[in-house]
């Protein structure tokens, strides 16, 4: 297949990928969008086979490896529980990163196969592109592994910080740039390996100071990195499909990071340079725990909600941990039978990744038109009888609106306190991730339900 013809087909794949993302503008068109994406991928792979035109024994090995990887991927995709989506996505990002590193390595070892010159005489532009692709890929790989370990709970979600951390990162980043410069002058393979090694270390150091609840930003950021790594390789291979995809994924991840930061009213650098959890707030919260709280049980909650005309559910990460989404749906079903109007309010940073709560509710068969975003529903709290807060904490804290001293001041929060009564399901009075006490616990219209989110919801279902 001629180079021009295959370039045209790669362009078609790129356009199909754009349409795949376009489909996600509404759930109705999203499934079709996914098929566009699959079509684009199939075209790219077939065109590559035809343009390489090598149908020797190597092709059989390629197909075997393709099938091995594909079956592993398919197996994971069918088996993974929806609550584990954040770590799955982090894991997948690491694979893209490592694949980019491997492709860059083989291009460096055998540039003639890619038409980039010869060993020790690689074209300057290609050398810059492949080393950038390899460096970003390596950072994506090791960073995603750390994110994966933190999300999976193998590694503590607490931020790991030490003195001079940011200086070391800066130094490593500059070292990578210097090494790329010297690589271009000497073509030495030792420098190429050093760039990859240092990038692996930098990836680890970049992610360890970021705490558990900032994970939505981290995942989006790594999503973006994996895109830039792909684009770097795309430039090396002079492949349009890869360049378009890299740009799409890179900007997609960047926008998601921006949305997540805005949801916390924090700057991107503030998140990247280390978490809130790093500041020790325990001393101040101890004295506050003496304040009186109203303690309720499942029957009280059931009574309140049954007699309400409208209920808004506020889910958070705690719902995902307790796997309470199915019990919640049952509760809502019986409330609806009693003529109660129920809707769901989702904060942008609820959960551990963008859109995490929406997927869990969709899994529990909650229709997506009952689920609303912060701006859409925030005014409705004033007219609602009961707000049922399940597994959320900081995103409901009224302090963010009233106390300029508070670390979360200015963060957009759900106006839960405006509803006539608040049911707050939580295991204890301990502060949330931001390390600050939630004022909502001590309000007159708040009834605390101290229990596991799933057990409490199930008990409420029983007494309904």
């Amino acid at each position: 297949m001629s180079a021009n013809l295959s370039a045209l087909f790669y362009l078609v794949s790129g356009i199909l990928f754009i349409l795949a993302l376009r489909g996600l503008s509404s759930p109705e068109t999203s499934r079709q969008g996914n098929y566009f994406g699959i079509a684009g991928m199939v075209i790219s792979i077939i065109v590559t086979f035809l343009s390489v035109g090598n149908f020797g024994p190597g092709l059989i090995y390629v197909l075997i490896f393709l099938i091995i990887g594909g079956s592993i991927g398919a197996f994971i995709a069918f088996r993974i529980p929806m609550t584990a989506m954040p770590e799955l996505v982090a894991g997948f990002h690491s694979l893209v990163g490592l694949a980019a590193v491997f492709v860059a390595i083989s291009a460096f070892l055998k540039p003639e196969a890619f038409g980039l010159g010869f060993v020790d005489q690689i074209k300057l532009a290609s050398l810059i592109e492949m080393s950038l692709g390899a460096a970003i890929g390596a950072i994506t790989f090791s960073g995603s592994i750390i994110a994966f370990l933190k999300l999976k709970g193998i590694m503590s979600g607490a931020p790991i910080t030490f003195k001079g951390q940011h200086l070391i990162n800066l130094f490593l980043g500059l070292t990578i740039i210097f090494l790329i410069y010297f690589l271009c002058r000497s073509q030495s393979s030792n420098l190429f390996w050093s760039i990859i090694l240092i990038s692996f270390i930098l990836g680890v150091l970049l992610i360890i100071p970021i705490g558990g609840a900032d994970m939505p930003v981290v995942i989006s950021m790594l999503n973006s990195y994996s895109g830039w790594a792909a684009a770097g390789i795309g430039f090396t291979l002079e492949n349009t499909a890869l360049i378009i995809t890299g740009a799409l994924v890179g900007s997609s991840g960047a926008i998601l990071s921006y949305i997540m930061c805005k949801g916390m009213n924090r700057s991107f650098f503030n998140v990247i340079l280390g978490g809130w959890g790093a500041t020790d707030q325990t001393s101040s919260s101890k004295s506050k725990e003496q304040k009186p709280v109203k303690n309720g049980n499942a029957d009280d909650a059931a009574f309140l909600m049954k007699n309400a005309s409208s209920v808004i559910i506020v889910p958070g990460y705690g719902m995902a941990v307790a796997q309470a989404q199915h019990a919640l749906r049952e509760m809502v079903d019986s409330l609806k039978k009693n003529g109660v109007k129920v809707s769901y309010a989702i904060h942008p940073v609820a959960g551990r990744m963008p859109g995490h709560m929406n997927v869990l509710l969709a899994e529990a068969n909650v229709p997506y038109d009952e689920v609303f975003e912060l701006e859409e529903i925030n005014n409705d709290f004033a007219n609602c009888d009961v707000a049922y807060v399940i597994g959320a904490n900081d995103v409901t804290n009224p302090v963010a609106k009233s106390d300029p001293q508070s670390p979360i001041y200015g963060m957009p929060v759900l106006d839960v306190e405006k509803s006539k009564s608040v049911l707050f399901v939580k295991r204890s009075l301990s502060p949330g991730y931001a390390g600050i006490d939630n004022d909502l616990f001590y309000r007159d219209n708040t009834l605390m339900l101290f229990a596991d989110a799933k057990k409490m919801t199930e008990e409420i279902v029983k007494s309904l």
Partner: protein
Amino acid sequence: MEIDPFIFRLSIFILSIFVGYYVVWSVTPSLHTPLMSVTNAISSVIIVGAIIAALSDSSESIFDTSNIYGFLAIVLAAVNIFGGFLVTQRMLQMYKKKKK
């Protein structure tokens, strides 16, 4: 004077960033998780490079060092392609409208 083909690729790249910017802003927030899994799947089009690496002719054997890196990259990218698209499909099947 002839324009370096690199400039054309750079133009495609920058225009695609703009396309990506507008397309991603129009994605509904409730589909942000499928957005991440599908972007993950499509970025595995890097498999194109892996296939070229794996199939590149070598004088000695098909398991030259650079071919081996190609084969490894094929496995990684294939996990992502199948895993990414299928898990996205699984998620999107769950989004249902209210039955009336």
